[in-house]
């Protein structure tokens, strides 16, 4: 029987992927050029695919633990409210302009790359398998978003200014990625969860390298990831952005429960 923290941890991983995937999907049909519209939609599909595997895993754990009603990947994605979601604050932030969307992807992908790299050795074989499968996708997301950060940061005066603004808007949400939530603390010693603090140095180095090449060092980029003062998405205390996202994403299942097509 799975511990509650094990379920919560699986949801944390799944919610990150679903929420960022959904945010990216908001660009579908609205990308700056067709080529990049497709590129970002591909990343959205990769993330939603990862979310499905992780929700299926979480649902299995819930049902094995004797959940009162049968839990499915859909009930987890569409039937929970804001405070039930465990995604980090970074991924729920609104798209803004192309620069902000790119930067959000880069900051998250860099974290996911090192974090999933370590998760491949999880004692939970299912999580390890998802990490193994996802890491190839994430490697490309990191490459793609890095190239974009460099070109926008070191591009025109306007693109540089927009990237500086994006760093200013998003940096405050990065600290949370490296502070373990209670359910992570519970699972680190048993080898199921990755200690998020253990990937901080690698993340800082990668971000520093890309920011330097993108001429972003002198801007709002500070020496350590910043902690957003109130709450924390990993603990279920979200910014108002998530409520709007869920209202749109969950509308159909809320209005027509269990509908299929």
């Amino acid at each position: 029987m799975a511990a509650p923290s094990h379920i919560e941890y699986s949801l944390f991983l799944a919610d990150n992927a679903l929420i960022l995937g959904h945010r990216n999907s908001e660009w579908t049909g609205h990308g700056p050029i067709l080529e990049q519209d497709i590129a970002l939609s591909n990343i959205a599909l990769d993330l939603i695919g990862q979310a499905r595997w992780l929700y299926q895993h979480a649902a299995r754990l819930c049902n094995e633990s004797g959940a009162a009603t049968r839990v499915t990947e859909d009930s987890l994605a569409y039937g929970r409210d804001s405070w039930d979601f465990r995604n980090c604050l970074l991924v729920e932030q609104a798209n803004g302009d192309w620069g902000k969307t790119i930067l959000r992807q880069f900051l998250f992908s860099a974290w996911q790359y090192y974090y999933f790299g370590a998760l491949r050795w999880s004692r939970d074989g299912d999580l390890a398998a998802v990490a193994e499968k996802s890491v190839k996708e994430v490697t490309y997301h990191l490459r793609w978003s890095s190239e974009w950060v460099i070109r926008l940061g070191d591009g025109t005066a306007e693109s540089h200014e927009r990237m500086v603004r994006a760093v200013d808007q998003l940096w405050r949400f990065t600290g949370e990625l490296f502070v373990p939530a209670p359910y992570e603390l519970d699972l680190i010693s048993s080898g199921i969860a990755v200690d998020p603090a253990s990937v901080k140095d690698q993340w800082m180095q990668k971000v520093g390298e890309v920011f330097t090449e993108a001429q972003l060092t002198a801007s709002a980029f500070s020496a350590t990831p910043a902690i957003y003062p109130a709450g924390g998405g990993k603990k279920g205390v979200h910014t108002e952005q998530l409520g709007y996202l869920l209202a749109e994403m969950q509308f159909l299942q809320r209005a027509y429960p269990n509908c299929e097509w």
Partner: protein
Amino acid sequence: MATPNTPLWEVFIRSRNGLAHKHCGSLHASDATMALQAARDIFTRRGEGLSIWVVPSNAITASDPAEKGMMFEPAESKIYRHPTFYELPDELKHM
């Protein structure tokens, strides 16, 4: 939409080992790295390729369609250039 910052690139994909790269379309990108990424995202989504080439479209020298009479018609009447007059042994199946 074409802009001065995003020139046109031609994309060639090799679908399997042993086959040649084949032209499959074109795209806009700011430079070679971005063109390669965009080619991967647009043209290999369904597992179409093992290798990609991108070439700036303006690096291609093309024949002039107005000259196709001079260029290609003379070959149409030279059927003896097709190796169809040889008796092939049955063991050779894929000629």
